[in-house]
């Protein structure tokens, strides 16, 4: 199954890239002189949190996916015949440790590409190293919208020549939530927010609040709470939220915080009157199980949901294989970080193949791979992913409401709605907040 899909995809790409290259007619000049394909394996470093709070919800699933994808690619013959030598690295140890590690990976270990980073701080510190050291870096899971944006709109793109992010930023989650609320709950009067007191929580709320003000100006914000990261007791926050009687509470809580909040709120009868809207709630119904409350609005950080069937046939086939294979290996359904990891490693694969084809064979130069990544569009288990000229991923976004069914031991998403990429991603060169403010 896997083999068939990938061959078809490969042939399709061969055709497409050959056509593009042919029509340009300047192959060797633009795509550089490819060298003969080396015999040794491709060194890919995958950096995710393997220790600490972000390991269990994101790092380990992400790292598992890298391993699985590398095996799948190797089984099919590798990339242009070269096998992948995957090296998993830990993202813990502080930002300075990540800067040092990335320098070591590129300069000393001479890896072909660094795929990685869950924390926005790591991404912000490490991506500039791509151009400084001349190494290719693809960020795979960090959310900050500041990563590829400049200080003012319009800003110059791309920010980094050799630095990419193979996913969209946190803007899409929060904009999609606001759009979903407007469509399904048009009569609500009050909203509130509970977000962790650091950049991630603050940014998520900023975008959600800005979008809500534009989409539903009549809705009042009654409370904004900022619990610290790693909070273990949410009872005071839950009481305060219940006291202010919002209809919907926005939250970007993640990991243990999201699970703890949900469990404590359930015990206090929170969900009888109030509905949560989680910007990245997708992994937690599966984590919590049957106790996870029904009727909660959940965004999937893209269309990364194991029951989602992409419209595109190739993607739909890939999704089937991906979910089955992941479940077989790890006993769980893939969560959104898994899809992000898939996107990063396959973005590299497709770009190498595209660049090699365009140059008329051989192993492409790093500049050619970077050029191929820009504007690359390829099928993934969650649909077609495009990497835009600003080197940022461009994705649709799926939102649904949790609902228990007899088929799964945890609530799945009901009333799902996919918001097209153009509706949730700001245009190239415009800052997210400026774009939302320009909505008519």
């Amino acid at each position, binding site marked *: 199954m896997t083999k068939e899909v990938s061959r078809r995809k490969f042939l399709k790409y061969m055709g497409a890239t050959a056509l593009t290259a042919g029509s340009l007619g300047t192959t060797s000049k633009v795509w550089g002189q490819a060298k003969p394909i080396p015999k040794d394996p491709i060194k890919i470093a995958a950096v995710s949190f*393997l*220790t600490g709070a972000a390991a269990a919800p994101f790092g380990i699933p992400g790292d598992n996916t890298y391993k699985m994808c590398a095996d799948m690619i190797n089984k099919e013959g590798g990339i242009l015949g070269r096998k992948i030598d995957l090296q*998993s*690295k*830990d993202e*813990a*140890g*502080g*930002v*300075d*440790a990540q*800067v*040092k*590690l990335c*320098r*070591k*990976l590129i*300069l*000393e*270990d001479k890896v072909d590409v660094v795929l990685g980073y869950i*924390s*926005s*701080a790591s991404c*912000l*510190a490490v991506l*500039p*190293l791509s*151009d*400084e*050291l001349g190494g290719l870096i693809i960020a795979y899971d960090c959310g*900050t919208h*500041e990563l590829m944006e400049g200080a003012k709109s319009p800003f110059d793109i791309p920010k980094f020549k050799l630095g990419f992010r193979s996913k969209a930023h946190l803007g899409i989650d929060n904009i999609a939530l606001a759009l979903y609320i407007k469509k399904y709950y048009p009569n609500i009067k009050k909203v509130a927010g509970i977000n962790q*007191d*650091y*950049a*991630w929580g*603050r940014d998520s709320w900023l975008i959600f609040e800005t979008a809500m003000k534009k989409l539903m100006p009549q809705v009042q914000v009654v409370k904004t709470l900022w619990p610290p990261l790693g909070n273990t007791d949410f009872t005071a926050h839950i009481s305060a939220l219940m006291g202010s009687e919002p209809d919907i509470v926005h939250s970007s809580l993640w990991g243990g915080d999201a699970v703890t909040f949900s469990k404590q709120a359930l015990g206090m009868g929170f969900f009888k009157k109030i509905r949560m809207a989680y910007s990245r709630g997708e992994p937690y119904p599966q984590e919590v199980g049957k106790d996870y409350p029904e009727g909660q609005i959940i965004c999937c950080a893209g269309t990364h949901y194991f029951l989602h069937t992409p419209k595109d046939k190739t993607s739909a086939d890939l999704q089937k294989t991906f979910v089955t294979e992941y479940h077989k290996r790890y006993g769980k359904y893939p969560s959104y970080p898994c899809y992000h990891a898939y996107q990063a490693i396959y973005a590299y694969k497709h770009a190498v193949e595209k660049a090699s084809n365009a140059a008329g064979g051989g192993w492409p130069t790093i500049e050619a791979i970077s050029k191929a990544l820009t504007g690359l569009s390829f099928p993934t288990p969650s649909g077609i992913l495009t990497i835009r000229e600003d080197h940022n991923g461009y994705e649709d976004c799926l939102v649904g409401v949790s609902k228990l069914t007899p088929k799964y031991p945890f609530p799945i998403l009901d009333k799902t709605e996919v918001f097209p990429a153009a509706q949730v991603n700001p245009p190239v060169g415009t800052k997210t907040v400026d774009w939302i403010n320009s909505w008519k």
Partner: protein
Amino acid sequence: MGLKNKPNYLRWIVYLILFIALLFIPRILSIHDLMLFEYGLTFAIVGLGFNLLLGYTGLLSFGHGAYFAAGAYSVAMIAKYLPQAYSIEIVIPAALFFSLILSIIFGFVCVRHTKIFFSILALSLSMLLFALLFKLYHITGGSDGLRVPLPTMFGFSFKGIRRPEFLSGTYYYFLLAMFAISFVVMKGIVSSPFGKALQAIRDNEVRAELIGIRVRRYRLYAFCISGMFVGLGGALWTFVNGHVTADLSHWVFSGEIVYMTLLGGFGIFEGPIVGAMIFTYLKLYAMGHTEYWMFVIGATLIVLVLLLPSGVAGAFSTLWRRTIKGN
């Protein structure tokens, strides 16, 4: 007297030879190793400052990340908010100034206590700064931190130059000069009557007070000097790293400063320098080779405490003395 001066004289010759050798480091090391070496040098300055408190005054601070952050954020904030003043000859004095101010404020509270009380107070105050850097995120960048561009240096702009080139060229020599100055100044401080007074306080507080040393005030002086050295290290480090985050003021980071000082040996003047160098390489190579790097760091600490209580430099010095005696 003459006998006593002889080894000191020799010692300075060795220092000078080592300094000259360090001048040639960029020709020997690869660009990656050189950048790592620069991390080591900045932490060596930090270690020198930290050890004035631990080794010479007998105060163990678990909050020295705060002064490191003060130095680092002085640089990053000037880069962001006063870009016209972003030159190395302005940011370094600014970093020294702000770390001095911070250490006066924090030190004033801390030096009233010793032992565990001092350590915990220093830790809490540094966490206070951490909370501020973390929460005032519109100003400080919070957990995402701030990017630090290349500064101008004595009127010379490095626009269009990549950071590795900057670090392997002029900046290395600047850093080395700063390290040499710090080294000589600190050596002067610990050998001066002031330094001896600190050691007297360390060895016996009551006796020191009885012979007329104003213990609390001397501790505060030591604290401020120490804070400034650590702040200087932090400021110099920012250019090497290129990014600062609030984590620098977190007690975990302060713990790393303690760790490297213990690793080298706090009983010897050069100990923290050796420790800073080893720790820089140890952490990176442990991280680069295994997912269980924290285990490696932890195990090393246990081995260190059990087998080499006086640190690597301490062990070498003992070995050296024994060899000479044996001969």
